């Protein structure tokens, strides 16, 4: 099946997927995503740490309005969280492959790439998410 990322240069896929962030040239501060347009000139492109600890979380229980949401019409609640990538930045994303009642702050999570929705022509749209690190008990 054909696939495409939901946005260009959001992540680098592979055996260990990593998000594309920016490091401010003077302050060294990390940001995600890499800033678009003119603002990007102040940043170096960096690959973020692949895993970290869950910083906070919630469950999205209703279908967000479209636009801007482009997910499938049939709605299933999904988990959302912030994951602290050590020494860099805390990133928001979907939490996958985890039971809602198993979510707890501090649990180890890692970056993964998941199917998000389908284009009209059947192309699978991919995005990043975070999943529990196996054996962590999460």
């Amino acid at each position: 099946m054909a696939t495409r990322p939901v946005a260009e240069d959001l992540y680098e896929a592979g055996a260990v997927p990593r998000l594309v962030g920016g490091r401010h040239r003077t302050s060294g501060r990390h940001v995600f995503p890499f800033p678009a347009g003119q603002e990007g000139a102040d940043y170096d492109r960096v690959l973020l740490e692949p895993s970290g600890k869950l910083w906070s979380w919630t469950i999205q229980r209703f279908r967000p309005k479209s636009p801007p949401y482009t997910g499938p019409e049939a709605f299933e609640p999904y988990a959302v969280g912030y994951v602290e990538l050590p020494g860099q930045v805390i990133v928001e994303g979907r939490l996958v492959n985890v039971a809602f009642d198993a979510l707890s702050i501090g649990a180890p999570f890692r970056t993964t790439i998941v199917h998000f929705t389908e284009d009209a022509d059947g192309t699978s749209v991919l995005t990043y998410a975070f999943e529990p690190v196996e054996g962590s008990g999460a």
Partner: protein
Amino acid sequence: MSACIVGIGIHPFGRTDGMTGLDMGVAAARSAMRDAGVDWSQIQFAFGGSDASGNADTMVSRLGLSGIQFINVKNGCATGGSALFAAASSIDSGEYDLGLAVGFDKHPRGAFDPKPEEWGLPSWYGETGLMLTTQFFAMKIRRYMDIHGISVESLGRVAEKSFANGALAEHAWRREPVDLETILNAPMVSDPFTKFMFCSPAEGAVALVLASEAKARSMGVPIIRLSAVTMRTRPPGSFEVFAPALEIEQGGSATRLASAAAFEKAGIGPGDIQVAQLQDTEAGAEIMHMAENGFCADGDQEQWLAEGRTRIGGALPVNTDGGCIACGEPIGASGLRQVYENVVQLRGAGGRRQVPGDPKVAYSHVYGAPGVSAVTILRR
């Protein structure tokens, strides 16, 4: 010398079919002028705004083409506070001595549906279902509860108080009390918040007539002084709505900056406040804002709420008209509703929701995307 609020007007919050946001703004303006005993021909200037219901200055075609200065303000959740700041500054500067601040809005049903590009965010952030204010508030309180030992029951107690107070406020939208058990057992919207713990986008309008102190005295109306009006944006390391990423080193907040500046300007501290209206987009926000505005230490809210200290009749009544949870949130009007309610309380006109003990100092606070806050302190 400080500007005084000499007239207040409100169009009830909630849903009013057949009226536009601007219609409600006009109704609130007329009501405020009636309250002050002035007419439009005497008003020298106005600041006004809405987030989603058009340009405030177009109301001159309804109020009268008197040719006055009328400046539109658009500043998210701080729209009302910013209009009030500008109006008070215009009087403090000596430029004018009688003017109007007005805010109104009319939002469609359901959660807000912000457009990523209007907030400097990439489109994928909205497309993938991450750009929701409800998620932000839920994740902010989840972490706060974890660190500071706040229980789910405390979230419920805030909402229970909101509905109890709203039942006593003529301008509120939700006028029925809801018991704690019902609140806690209602369907989850965004964990840990059930549907009764969130406010809803709504409709409504508020207008305030401001005058110099000398002018107010000549009018023979009750004098409520604006001791401080401040608006601030976010500092580094704050945790704000619509943030794809956060800094690990967490710092202050727009609320802490606006609050500290207001107390400094008024020359008083949190212990001097006798009634407070705090941004309660949901039950968690009221809890966190109690600490961010300096009224208690982080974590003390658990005991405050268990003891009912923020109820009408408690040590520091908070959101005496039910706040956003009972009134709903028309963005442009919400901050001015808080000031309206404080004027009602300082006049002793609160009826069944009147704070006892003849309060003389009142505080209001709004917060919103992308990290803005406005605070006012009123004194009688």
